[in-house]
């Protein structure tokens, strides 16, 4: 790369910095505002304060929202990972008529606008009397999170020695035994990563949950409520905590995916 122009490179780096500032300003801002005593923060910033955190700690609505979010997240993580695993293995091993349709069905949900998904699910689930409950959110998130689980596990499967499964069969393991003793142990890091990431996706999903959860609102839905009602800086406190927990989940997932311990190759 000989033809370098230092000035242009400088501008390019500046541009990256500006983009990053733009992307992280609201995130950092939210964190700072959560520790700020002002209700409507501006410059100069007010005093340091933990009031907002105290406010959400004492707010039963926030706790119930958090509870719903956690329950939904845990259940969705398990369901989406199981569904995604099945889809990933099917794509890995089998070729069949209609496979493109199968894959499209499995992977398209993230491309549909959430408003439309929300409306469709609301109409459908209420018709079959399944709307307005935690189950409705679980169903909707199951649809939206399985593609992520499927992609993660499929990626891991493509790292597997193509003869590994056949070797297990050849040594006396039928398909079920091989699944249990070879495929699952090999994909274990990806399975855990999928569990974490689908939980994180479910945590932050507010739009469809808003449509279908009725009175059993998840936390993001509550946040939406706060936004719509009077503007409340509690949102910042909730947001910062949610961010921290999501990040923890992500970092754990990353560590798992890179685990060199058991010779991941």
């Amino acid at each position, binding site marked *: 790369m000989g033809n370098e122009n230092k000035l242009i490179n400088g501008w390019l780096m500046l541009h990256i910095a500006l983009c990053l500032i733009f992307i992280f300003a609201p995130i950092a801002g939210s964190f700072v505002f959560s520790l700020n005593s002002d209700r409507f923060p501006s410059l100069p910033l007010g005093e340091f304060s933990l009031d907002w955190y105290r406010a959400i700690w004492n707010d039963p609505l926030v706790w119930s929202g958090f509870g719903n979010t956690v329950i939904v997240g845990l259940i969705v993580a398990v369901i989406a990972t199981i569904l995604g695993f099945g889809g990933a293995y099917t794509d890995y091993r089998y070729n069949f008529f209609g496979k493109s349709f199968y894959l499209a069905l499995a992977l398209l949900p993230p491309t549909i606008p959430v408003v439309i998904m929300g409306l469709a699910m609301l109409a459908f689930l209420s018709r079959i009397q399944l709307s307005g409950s935690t189950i409705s959110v679980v169903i909707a998130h199951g649809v939206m999170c399985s593609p992520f689980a499927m992609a993660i596990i499929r990626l891991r499967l493509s790292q597997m020695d193509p003869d590994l499964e*056949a070797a297990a069969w050849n040594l006396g*393991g039928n398909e079920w035994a091989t699944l249990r003793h070879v495929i699952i142990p090999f994909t274990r890091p990806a399975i855990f990563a999928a569990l974490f990431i689908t939980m994180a996706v479910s945590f932050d999903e507010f739009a469809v949950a808003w449509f279908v959860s009725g009175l059993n609102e998840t936390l993001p839905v509550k946040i939406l409520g706060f936004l719509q009602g009077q503007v409340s800086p509690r949102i910042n406190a909730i947001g910062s905590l949610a961010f921290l927990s999501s990040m923890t989940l992500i970092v754990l997932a990353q560590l798992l995916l890179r685990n060199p311990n058991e010779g991941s190759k």
Partner: protein
Amino acid sequence: MDASTTPPAIVKFDNVVKKFGDFVAVEKADFEIGQGEFMAIMGSSGCGKTTTLRMLAGLEDPTSGDIYLDGERVNGRATWDRDTPMVWQSLALFPFLTVQENVEFSLKMRGVGKAERAKRARKWLEKMQITEFADRGINQLSGGQRQRVALARALVTEPKILLLDEPLSALDAHLKVRMQAVLSNLQKDLGITFVYVTHSMSEAFAMADRVVIMSRGRIEQIGTPEEIYRAPYNRFVAEFLGSANIFDGVVGAATPGGHMVAYDGGEVDLPASELLDAKTGDKVTFMVGAENVDLAPTDAGQDGLAATVVGEEFLGATATVFLETDDGQELKVQKSHAELKAVKCHAGARLIAHWAPSACHVLPGEKG
């Protein structure tokens, strides 16, 4: 094709054909493997050797024809229901298990208890001299050590037959030769049948009792290495062996011992034992081994093929000389350095190539 007396067959391929869609991978494979034999299946890429092995293992089903294992017809039986463990080209060791757990795997699949598994696995770890690695992950082992784990893993159930799919192809040269000896000795020790797939002729000929040569889905010849080398069946095998000069000829007048055969460059009296039932006018192809061709100077009054030396290759005590006749035919001659010096062999030299009729071998598979 299959001449030798073999012990009772443990494998029988009866007119097996394998097609993938329109592509014929294996065409009418018909042979037997005897108990305790070391059988090599050899050929270049795409010849069908691996497909044949996989059908034996149960990883593919024949399109038509029958496969018998130990007298039983096993078409359609899944690989986990057969006792045909395989050593894979990539070894396919389980990276999430220790060495001992890898070896124990097939016992675990068969429901053997924990203590018994460990005992039997340890026995095989000792046999393959890798006991010290029992609790290590397989990534910590060298290529040769991993080979041994793969062998122990396959043999732990003490099967009657072991399949090997080019297991040495990933090893470097000196390790290859060592492992060839290990495998040979192992097979003789255990007395079980080995079915060994390879693209390397030297490997096959070094280790095997009999060799199956395949090309483009067809079996070209089956025999012991000596048989094949001495009497290749057709042009493909002869060319594959690489050490022969091949001539196309036409059967002419009868002679006391056989017939005259005319070819580009002369005539030769071939015995009936070689010509078999060929009649006058038939086309035959015959070969002369490179070591059986003699060279003489042009002025020595020797009858034969005139040719010019175009190249030489040193092989230790001997050299291979490449010559070209006036008609463009290539000849290969293998002689000691002394013999070549005697006829003043050098690049560009014109010499007469000649051989005894007894050195000629008619390729039975090429009869017109």
